[in-house]
């Protein structure tokens, strides 16, 4: 006679991270609304919350090693390697997002609370999304995340760009989630299932040849909804405008967390749900990859605003990652490695931006970098490292990830894709070197205030650039991790 809770599979360790974040949020909310707590206290509350979350994530690891691959809350929450990897990445992103508040908490004390709350909530939402086994659950998690991101991008109310960004992001984002949920509905309508594993089971049950068109279109809608979040061309239009408008301090978080969660979900989809019918999607994915790298390179190469440039480079990177994800399990592991390294570099770059031009500033034109080398060596060097990493120069993690990815693609004989990716890399050197040039070589015409960096921020910069180099020299551990993620599915 098992209790109902066991029947449902109630387990709070699985949603531990989400709960800790939720609790932290609530504490912050009440502390701000009821008693006027000083920003320092808020900071510490936040920090404690974040580290508690990390702890919870490690608890999940423990659970996984005891139970193995298992689903909870009656097939709503899934505990598998992908979700663990996603949790780890999101935890990483969270930590390196909260450091900027050390500097800005004094300046923007009014805004920080809301920002912190929004960030924490979106993180919890994306955590759920990564964990979810059920597509509706996924939808809810995605919405929790996205809604707070909409608000986050509009947080800088004094700025027209910020408003515009938030509105665009909101309209397009909700359109995307409409499409996603419509896809879920079509899936449900065709197979009466709304789950990741159910889908693969159903497909294997009815045979890959006679999968209903409705199912396939539903899956495509679902995937498109996710592709929108990772800003893969041709659904990239929102990204540059939003990145440009959103407060610089949060763009890194917005970009990376959305990419992480959506890519993890995509990876799980292609590893589990689509594993049988992946070849049906090859042309579809190839079109998206090629569009991403080509359009991304073309757009990026004449940008004067660095945040837009980064957005477009993000488009290209999405193309790369998608190429791995869409081609098979080894490709997925390569993509996960790529994703990780890219997240590190992305966070780094945007951290540098937020250090240079205030935390809430919106647009970031390339001139702001001119004469940076004279002003601040550390910033310039780490910035160059991140950019070169994104460009994929050897001795940085970007090279290793590209190499492994390309090697896998080649073994999957996707030659056209490989060639396109490589060409985009060449073009990439053209437009990634421009800002480095401006930062390290060009003399600045306008004299600007000296940039002061606190110790913690120096530390963060060093850690991130160290990671970029380290993963380029000794990628073994991370690669083993990514291999471990896909091992059981081989």
């Amino acid at each position, binding site marked *: 006679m098992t209790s109902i809770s066991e029947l449902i599979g109630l387990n709070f360790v699985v949603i531990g991270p989400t709960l800790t974040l939720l609790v932290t*949020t609530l504490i912050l909310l009440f502390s701000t609304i009821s008693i006027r707590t000083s920003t320092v206290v808020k900071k510490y509350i936040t920090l404690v919350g974040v580290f508690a979350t990390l702890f919870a994530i490690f608890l999940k690891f423990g659970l996984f090693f005891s139970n193995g691959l298992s689903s909870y809350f009656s097939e709503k929450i899934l505990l598998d390697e992908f979700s663990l990897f996603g949790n780890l990445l999101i935890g990483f992103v969270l930590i390196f997002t909260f450091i900027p508040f050390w500097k800005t908490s004094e300046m923007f004390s009014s805004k920080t609370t809301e920002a912190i709350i929004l960030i924490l909530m979106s993180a919890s939402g994306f955590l759920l999304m990564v964990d979810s086994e059920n597509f509706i659950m996924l939808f809810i998690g995605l*919405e929790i995340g996205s809604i707070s991101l909409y608000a986050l991008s509009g947080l800088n109310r004094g700025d027209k760009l910020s408003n515009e960004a938030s509105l665009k992001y909101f309209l397009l984002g909700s359109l995307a989630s409409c499409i996603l949920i419509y896809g879920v509905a079509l899936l449900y309508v065709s197979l009466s299932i709304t789950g990741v594993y159910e889908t693969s089971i159903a497909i294997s049950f009815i045979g890959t040849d006679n999968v209903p068109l409705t199912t396939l279109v539903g899956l495509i809608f679902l995937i498109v909804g996710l592709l929108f979040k990772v800003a893969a061309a041709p659904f990239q239009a929102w990204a540059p405008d939003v990145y440009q408008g959103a407060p610089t301090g949060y763009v890194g978080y917005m970009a990376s967390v959305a990419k992480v969660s959506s890519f993890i979900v995509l990876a799980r989809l292609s590893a589990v749900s689509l594993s049988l019918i992946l070849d049906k999607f090859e042309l579809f994915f190839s079109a998206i990859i090629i569009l991403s790298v080509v359009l991304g390179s073309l757009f990026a190469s004449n940008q004067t605003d660095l945040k837009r440039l980064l957005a477009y480079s993000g488009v290209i990177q999405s193309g790369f990652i998608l190429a791995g994800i869409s081609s098979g399990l080894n490709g997925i592991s390569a993509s996960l490695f790529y994703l990780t390294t890219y997240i590190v570099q992305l966070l780094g770059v945007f951290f540098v931006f937020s250090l240079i031009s205030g935390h809430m500033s919106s647009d970031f034109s390339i001139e702001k970098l001119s004469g940076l080398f004279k002003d601040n060596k550390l910033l310039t060097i780490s910035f160059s490292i991140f950019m070169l990493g994104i460009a994929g120069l050897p001795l940085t993690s970007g090279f290793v990830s590209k190499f492994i990815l390309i090697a896998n693609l080649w073994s999957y004989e996707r030659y056209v894709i490989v060639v396109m990716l490589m060409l985009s890399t060449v073009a990439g050197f053209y437009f990634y070197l421009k800002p480095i040039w401006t930062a390290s070589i060009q003399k600045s015409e306008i004299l600007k205030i000296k940039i002061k960096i606190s110790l913690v921020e120096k530390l963060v910069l060093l850690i991130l650039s160290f990671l970029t180099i380290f993963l380029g020299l000794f990628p073994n551990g991370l690669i083993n991790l990514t291999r471990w993620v896909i091992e059981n599915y081989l």
Partner: protein
Amino acid sequence: MLEILLFFIPASLIIIGALIVVFAKNPVHNAMGLVLTLISLAIAYITLNAPFVAMVQMLVYAGAVMTLFLFVIMMIGVDKREQSTEKIKGQTYLVSGVFLILISLLVYVAINSKFKWSLWFPKVDYVVEGTPQLIAGLLFTGWILPFEIISLLLIVATAAAIALAYDSKKKSTDA
């Protein structure tokens, strides 16, 4: 015969409402069109054995959500009617093209899947009435987690709304 009527009357109303939403110039009319659509959707739900959902639809949508809409419309002002001329080049043609293709595509998809159903998932011959009991039963067992998480969603919405709209500081900075 009756069920055909029960399909076509709400269906036509839904479409008409939708068209009003899309084409009416006055925001209030749009809102009314939306209300029409929602209500007739509720009717359709009832015919689809989902009375409870229909109720909720009436209450939440036609009630709360539309009120919000109207409130904002009043705030923004009805008198300003948006200019109807299209400024973006080529938008019209592309839009209409996209619209036609999309609608035909979706309809094709919808129709196309019929025979698959008859093969794999034939329509069940029994009827499951979506009564509150049933729904509650499921909500509080299988769907407990999403149901709880929804609250988180609402908190997020509130926080976001506050973050965006509430500005006491701004005035002080302006002054």
